[in-house]
Structures are given as structure tokens and as C-alpha cells.
């Protein structure tokens, strides 16, 4: 495979995953903002959304006030925000267009449609209902994209590079989301707060589509250390860091099979997975959750660089 195509596929996977994450984040935020101010309320909800998207600084630079409309516009459709849903889809589609030959017609049509659909919404979202419609539309398009890729793409480098981008981006998103919220994710020794925290935890779970999963896994009331456990260590949870690394190791192994040898990226990924497997939720809190997550994000970035170097991007 052309090295340029490999890079395009990897970034296609990343942009699609990021757009999907933003959709889920916005959906959860609209719900949180609808609660009375004593339970969170609009202002703090939208501010938190900016942080969870790692976009607080970029938004601050625009000089605009933090209101629901402004933040929703910025995260969803602002052409000036390189990480908005709109821009992610545009980047994804540009990457896909540059490697049309590596994608099946259906996979390409799905990402092209996602880009066509999001453009219909223009560059403002006046009403929450419009925002929800946009979020649903984009989510559907991206499900179609994933489905087309899953059903029809040949299981070879093309597919593995795209999936690799997805798993790496997914791990990054989950880690950043958790890091924004580490102050509410308390070890079991701490007294649990009031209903305010409860809604913050459910919002966090919703953002990664894990609220129902939580109930199935723990059959327990929502407890902050279990939220952390679910999103960091539980392999059956597809957005947990451990699950993402299991996927990453798998895709890198497939690529190694295709090219006939392993490399530094394979070793880094395996080491990362081993580290996660060795942790328990108690050891994580002992060592400091914030420090752990910062370290994880840095390692994940280093893995991204190693992948690029190993495959001659």
C-alpha cells in the first residue's frame, strides 16, 4: 500500500471517531443543560462541554460568550474551528477522497453523504432541536460508514489502518474526557456528593454511550470509582482505555502479518496494554488519577508517532 494512502486512512479513522465523539458529547450536554440550575444548569454544562472536547482555549480565543448557542455552534458547525463536527467530516471526506481507490464505493458514499448532510445545516444552529437533529443525522451517517466498512472492506492493510486510527483516537477522547472530570471521580473512601455530582456522572457516561452498559456491568447505583473502572479498565466496554488498547494491539498485529514483521509500534502498544491490565481501580487512585491520565495521553501520542514512523507515512 502507498504510504500516503496509509496515512490518509489512519487520519480518516481518527476524524470519523472524533466527529462521532463530539456528537455524543453535544447530545449529553443538551440533556444536562435542560436540568434546573441547582443540578448543573446551562452555563456550567456548556462550559464543561468545551473542556470535554479539549476546546476551551480555542473557544476562548474567539472572544465569544459561553452560551448554549455559541458553544453548540462552535463545536458542531463552525468552519473556523478545525475540530468542529463539520470540519472533522470535511477532513475525513478529503482524506477519503484522496484514497478513493482504497475504499469500497459504499464506504466512500457513506462518508461523502455525511459531509453533504452536515453542510445542509449551514454554519449556525439556532435551536437545540436543530442541534439534536444534526447530531442524530451525523451519527446515522457515521454508523452507515462504519457498517459499510465492516461489511465490505477487505480485511487487509486498508481496513487495519482505518481501524487503528479509530482506536487510537477513541482512547485519546476517553482519556481526555476522564481527565476533565477527574475531580468528580473519587475513590470509594471519599464521601459521595449530592445530586449535582450524580448528573455529572450520568452525563459523562452518556457522552461515551455507557450509561446502560454501566447498569449491566455493575448492577449498582452510580458510584464514581466504578465509573472510572468502567471507562479505564473494563475490556467489554468498547470505549474503555483497555478495550481501545486491545483493539490497537490487534490491528497492529494484523498489519505486522501483512508486512511480515513487527516493529517498535507493536511493542509500544503491547506494553501499554500490559500496563492497563496490571492496574486495579485502587492502584489507579493511589497513584493519582490525573497523573495517570496525563501519562496515558502522552504515551498514546507517542504510539501515534511510532505508527507513522514504522509505516513510512
Amino acid at each position: 500500500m502507498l504510504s500516503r494512502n496509509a496515512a490518509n486512512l489512519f487520519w480518516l479513522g481518527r476524524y470519523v471517531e472524533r466527529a462521532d465523539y463530539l456528537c455524543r458529547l453535544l447530545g449529553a450536554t443538551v440533556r444536562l443543560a435542560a436540568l434546573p440550575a441547582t443540578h448543573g444548569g446551562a452555563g456550567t454544562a456548556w462550559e464543561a462541554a468545551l473542556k470535554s472536547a479539549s476546546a476551551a482555549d480555542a473557544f476562548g480565543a474567539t472572544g465569544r460568550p459561553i452560551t448554549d448557542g455559541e458553544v453548540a455552534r462552535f463545536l458542531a458547525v463552525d468552519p473556523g474551528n478545525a475540530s468542529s463536527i463539520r470540519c472533522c467530516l470535511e477532513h475525513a471526506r478529503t482524506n477519503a477522497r484522496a484514497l478513493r481507490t482504497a475504499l469500497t464505493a459504499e464506504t466512500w458514499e457513506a462518508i461523502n453523504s455525511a459531509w453533504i448532510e452536515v453542510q445542509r445545516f449551514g454554519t449556525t444552529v439556532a435551536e437545540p432541536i436543530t442541534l439534536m437533529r444534526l447530531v442524530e443525522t451525523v451519527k446515522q451517517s457515521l454508523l452507515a460508514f462504519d457498517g459499510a466498512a465492516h461489511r465490505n472492506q477487505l480485511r487487509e492493510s486498508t481496513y487495519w489502518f482505518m481501524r487503528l486510527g479509530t482506536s487510537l483516537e477513541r482512547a485519546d477522547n476517553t482519556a481526555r474526557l476522564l481527565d476533565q472530570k477527574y475531580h468528580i471521580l473519587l475513590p470509594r473512601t471519599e464521601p459521595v456528593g449530592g445530586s449535582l455530582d450524580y448528573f455529572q456522572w450520568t452525563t459523562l457516561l452518556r457522552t461515551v454511550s455507557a450509561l446502560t452498559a454501566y447498569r449491566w456491568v455493575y448492577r449498582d447505583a452510580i458510584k464514581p470509582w466504578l465509573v472510572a473502572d468502567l471507562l479505564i479498565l473494563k475490556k467489554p466496554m468498547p470505549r474503555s482505555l483497555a478495550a481501545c488498547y486491545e483493539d490497537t494491539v490487534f490491528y497492529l498485529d494484523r498489519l505486522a502479518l501483512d508486512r511480515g514483521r513487527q516493529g517498535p509500534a507493536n511493542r509500544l502498544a503491547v506494553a501499554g496494554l500490559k500496563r492497563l491490565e496490571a492496574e486495579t481501580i485502587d492502584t489507579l487512585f493511589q497513584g493519582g488519577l490525573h497523573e495517570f491520565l496525563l501519562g496515558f495521553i502522552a504515551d498514546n501520542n507517542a504510539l501515534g508517532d511510532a505508527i507513522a514512523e514504522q509505516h513510512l507515512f
Partner: protein
Amino acid sequence: MFGTGGYPETVDPAACRAAYALVAAWLAASTPELLETRRRQAELFFRRIGITFAVYGDPDADERLIPFDIIPRILSSAEWALVEEGLKQRVAALNAFCADVYGSREILRAGLVPEDLILANPQFAIGQVGFRPAGDVWVHIAGIDLVRTGPGEFMVLEDNARTPSGVSYMLENREVMLRLVPELITGETGEGGVRPVETYPEQLYASLRSVAPPGCRGEPTLALLTPGLHNSAYYEHSFLADKMGIELVEGSDLFVHDDVLFMRTTAGPARIDVLYRRVDDAFLDPLVFRPDTVLGVPGLVRACHAGNLTLANAIGTGVADDKAIYSYMPEIVRFYTGRDPILPNVPTWRCREPDALAEVLDRLPELVVKEVDGSGGYGMLVGPHATAAEIEAFRAKLKAAPAKFIAQPTLALSTCPTLTDSGIAPRHVDLRPFILTGAGGSTVLPGGLTRVAMRAGSLVVNSSQGGGTKDTWVLGPRDSAGGPG
């Protein structure tokens, strides 16, 4: 002779009339609303699969759709047999001409074509002198533009022997029609049915494979070189690479080492034997042509001359499809094939000749004047459609550099029924069939790209000037798709 006039193709031979009758029945059974819905479905289809083209100099139109007309154009098997034979003859002559002007130059010694028109032609590639490409094929892919003025009267308007485009539109137009009216295409439409065109990518692959260079060991590796995402024909490049299952490469993916071309892959360098290039000569190799090019690869030409690479089309074929050479094509065809051209030229005045120039200047308001090295419908004068001021401005340009221009009469192009804003109406059409040439000879695809001038009376069919396209149906037995060349 102008405007809504022109030969209406629907009155063609019985076979063709019968097929048009089926189309007419379909149209009659469809309300205007339904037709409009169909048209929009077709447009949506094109958008979803991403068939767009860029219009240079129009920032808002980076990706524009070519208007597609849902009423097909139909040609009978007898009409096609004539066209096919004529095209093979024409391409044989183009190939022989290239081999000759870069070889023994017999046509110059015979005095049939002025020497300066070839040797001083900007398209003449001096470095190709003495070079013999694999299989002696220069023009692997040709697109010959035809116009029609009456029953059985097809004329060649232009030869495209460099990097002709449009074949993807032909294939996708058929794909759209198969979705919109499958029963008409797959049914008994007349003379057996509509002949398939979808074998083109396979034939192209086979044709390119047959001209692997002498230095190729084992099964040749093919790749398609594109200028990139922003080229107006990028969609076509990716489409063809995809259908042939070969890599779509850009200059930055390639390098030449020891006169061998390689592409950079995730598993290290991989050798390329045949490169279907959709990049113009001038941008192919900074060591030989424009030194500032980033679209090509340093050393590409040496790899070719060392016998390690076949370029399709070969470098220097532009000398054969130049508009100044065009007017000599009847002589060229006779010289190399020993027969009269089956497809005549459009009568052409060479403004480089004083007598012709005087006549052209005299009759400017009724003629079409083109730059010899222009394309895409840019920089031409359509006399009957131009204002007095435009004509006078052109007259000055023409007098200043007469050798740069040729002139042709304004032809009464044939018309086909077309869906317009005000219902179904005749519109002028032309046809670009595609001819593949490999080591074993030439193949003509049964069909081609029909371009249609969407404005009433207009004769300009270029997509960059708002022209549209139609599906082209060649009738005949379905198994006669023709083998690869």
C-alpha cells in the same frame, strides 16, 4: 443553418427509430414531475458517488456537477460499424505519424506537412527522437471528437491523443440509466439491445499490460499518475484506478533509482512497469521539462528510455493532435493507411496560409475560429454568436498572429431530444468515443461520451462552458463488446 436547425437524430434508420420510440413511450408515460424527480435522483446519485469536476478560475465551483440529461442518445449498429472502422483507421494513422516524426520522418521528406509545423511545434518532444516505445504504440488511449451533420455523416472535429478524459462519465452515465430505466437497457431495445460499455476498465488494463517495457520481469505492475485532488478530472483518475485495481499515485509517491521507477509503500519501495499518466508532458520530469514541477518525478524520462518503464500515452503525442496538424489529417491518414479517410475532417482554413487568412477575415461573422493549442472551449470565437465588438477584437488578435489560429464553418450539428426547463426540446450534441491500442491492435468501445449544449441554439458542448452529457446507446448484439486489444 444555425440555431435550432441541424440534423435531428431521431429520424435515423428503422432500428434506431424503434429504440427512440421505446424511450418516447417511457417519456410519455412519465409526468413532468416524475421526470424532474428522475433528473434529481440522477443528480443525487452523481453527488453521492462524488462525480464532480472543477472549473478553473471559479472559486465557488471547486466541485461542480456536469448536468446530466436523462434522455439517451441512440446509434444503430450500421451507423456504429462505420464510426468504428473510421476511428480505428484514424488512430492507426495517429500512431504511425508519431512513430514517423520521431523516427525516419518520411512524411516530411514526402513534403506533405510543413516541417516547421512539426519541428518548431511546442508539443514536439525533441528527446523522443529515435525512441521506440514498447509494441510501437504511442497513443494507447485516444478520444476522437465527432460531430454529425446528417445520416451517416460523421466528421472528426478534434483528435485527443494526449490524456483524453471523459470515459468515467460515459461509464457512470450508463450506471445511472441502469438505475433509472433498467427495463429499457436490459430489454429488447432494438437490434438485440444496448451494447455494454462497462468492460472498459478491463480492456484498458489488458491493453496497458500488453505494452510492458522490455525491462519488466514477470507480471507487470501498473499505476495511474494523477496531478492530485484538485485536478478537474481527479474523479476519473480515482475511478479508473479503482476499477482496474491499480494504485493511484501522485508525484510525491514516486522516485526513480537506477533508471527504475518505484512507489513508496508501507512495505518499502515497489517497482512500477507501466504508468498510465494523466499528467501533461510538461510536468512529468523536472530534469527534462519544466524544472518547477512537483507533479512529476525526476528521472522518469530516463527510466522510459532505459526500457524500464512504459508511459501511456507516450511523451510527445501532442504533436499529432495539435489543431494546426489537424487540418493535415486527411493527407496523414492517406499517407499511412493508403486509403481515404472514412471519417472526414471538418473543412478547415489554416490561417497561417495568406489566402486562407484573407478569406477567414472576410467571413469572420459566420465562422468558428480556434487557437491551435487551445482546449476546453476557451479562447475561441463563435462568429454567429459574437457581438460586433468581440469580432473586431478577435480580428486584431488573428491579424497579429495568424499562425496561431484555424477557422471552420459553423456546422449544423445534429440534435437530440433533451429535457430542458421548458420541456423536451432538441439540443446540439457531439460524441467522444474512446479507442484503446495495445500490442495486439485497437479496440473501440461501443459508445462514448455524448456532450450536449444545454442552452437552446448553443453549439458549445464543453463541460467547462456549461455543457451537459447523455448516455450513448449503441444498438447491436450484446455479446459483441469486443475483446481487449
